[in-house]
């Protein structure tokens, strides 16, 4: 046996060769599928919603049905069938190229991992409202918090959106929160105070991401958990846009003539 064949139990990589150790769960063939203390098929399927299972998988905690319903509604808020929205356009372009629904949908989800919209912005929003609450409790005013943020950056995370000012989805989600009998927590209360100040003084309003992270902070979720649970938040909008263009003749979604491109490069030249 060469020295390469000896298992070094103190070596992290040797210990994990040909071995999986999971605290999430797994399939015991002929026995059950276990998911963090639950039998997936006996305890979860038929008793919980898909969003409850998704939250369990992401966070390790099975939430009550109200929270799962609340999160599901945020997905509805972010999944519009408008192919001008960038992530949706990936789905539409893929459909028009006759790419599969999976390819088009995944392309749109990848596009939403952005720092100007989609799940990619969630941790910045979460960081802002978390720090803002600490500062507010330490005696800073809303105006000071906002002014200091504008001193560092050109915008306040969670309080602007591309294309439009104002976000009707916040009102819709507040209605959902109320219907599900959620009480306004301290992050959410501060978020709305900041919204009031910004709309009066800077012509900007809270967006649905800003509202979501404040609500989810009040419910004890971390930034990492929020980013993970919102990974697919735009997915249904992308699916709609893929389906629409896939069902039309190939290449007819926003076709372009050659001169629809504005060439701004160097003049024609010969190879050296």
């Amino acid at each position: 046996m060469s020295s390469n064949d000896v298992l070094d139990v103190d070596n992290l990589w040797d210990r994990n060769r040909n071995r999986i150790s999971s605290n999430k769960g797994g399939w015991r063939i002929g026995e059950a599928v276990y998911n963090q203390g639950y039998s997936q098929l006996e305890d979860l399927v038929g008793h919980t919603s898909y969003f409850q299972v998704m939250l369990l998988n992401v966070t390790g905690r099975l939430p009550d049905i109200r929270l799962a319903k609340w999160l599901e509604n945020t997905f509805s808020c972010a999944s519009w069938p408008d192919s001008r929205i960038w992530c949706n356009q990936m789905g539409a372009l893929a459909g028009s190229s006759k790419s599969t629904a999976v390819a088009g949908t995944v392309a749109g989800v990848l596009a939403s991992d952005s720092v100007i919209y989609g799940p990619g912005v969630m941790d910045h929003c979460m960081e802002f409202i978390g720090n803002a609450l600490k500062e507010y409790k330490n005696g800073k005013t809303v105006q000071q918090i906002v002014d200091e943020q504008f001193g560092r950056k050109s915008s306040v995370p969670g309080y602007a959106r591309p294309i439009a000012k104002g976000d009707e989805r916040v009102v819709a989600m507040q209605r959902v929160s109320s219907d599900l009998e959620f009480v306004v927590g301290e992050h959410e209360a501060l978020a709305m105070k900041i919204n009031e100040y910004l709309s009066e003084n800077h012509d900007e309003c809270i967006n649905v991401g800003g509202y979501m992270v404040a609500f989810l902070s009040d419910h004890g979720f971390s930034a990492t958990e929020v980013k993970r649970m919102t990974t697919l938040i735009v997915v249904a909008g992308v699916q709609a846009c893929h389906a629409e263009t896939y069902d039309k003749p190939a290449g007819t979604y926003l076709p372009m003539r050659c001169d629809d491109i504005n060439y701004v490069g160097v003049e024609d030249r010969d190879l050296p």
Partner: protein
Amino acid sequence: MKKVEEKKRGDAFCQRISTAVWKEVPDSDNPFQIAEARCHGYEHLALVNNGSFSDVLFLLMKGELPNPEQSLLFDKLLISIIHPGPRHNASRAAMNAAVTKTNVSHVIPLALNVFSGEFLGSHEVFNCMKYLERNIKLIPSDVAADAFKRLLDVEGDKNPAPGFGTVYGDKDPYSQKLADNISSTCETGKYFSWACLFANALSEENCGWRMTGLFAAGMKDLGFTPYEGEMIFQIGSAPGIAAQAAEKFGRPITDMPFIPEENYVIE
């Protein structure tokens, strides 16, 4: 909030896409079709007949063909990273997709998603190029000493800087060998020289080059941005990943390991 007034920002969106990369001259009968195409001024067909793939890739990104020294360095960098190896997570993803009959259209995209990470993946190249930009004016040994001071005491590989550290617990000898080869056969610039000194300083703590680091340093010397560098790293490593998948195509699922029950521990 009772009601929100949504109003358009009135952004001045362009009417047409502008580009300096590619020019398409319309066909006289059908304006959607191409009569002639040019890449940064050079006729596409002339490039097809006279250019190499790596030179035209350089042209696409940089706007000019590389000089002979740049061409040699770019080509050697691309071949250095042409295959992350069959053990790399991206290759294993591709091979698993192949034996499980995943739609072939998805194999490279899914493997490149796996390949996009900050550890031995394309985003490590991006982060490394940024790191080199930030530190190029500082003394490499000082930066290395500072990096070790900030090093977190966590289980796993040491990551003193993106593109540098340990791989499987030790300095990576193969990345060192590839970096030495680049140094001895190509004309590199200030970034690669700085990174050599940096890697040397890191060796005191059993750290050194990673593949991502040597690619990043070379790309900086060639004048690429981190954004371009990450994308070219993905393009450059795709052939090896593709070859691993192609080899497995048509093979049964048993051609890849499936961890046995006794080795799958539910904690």
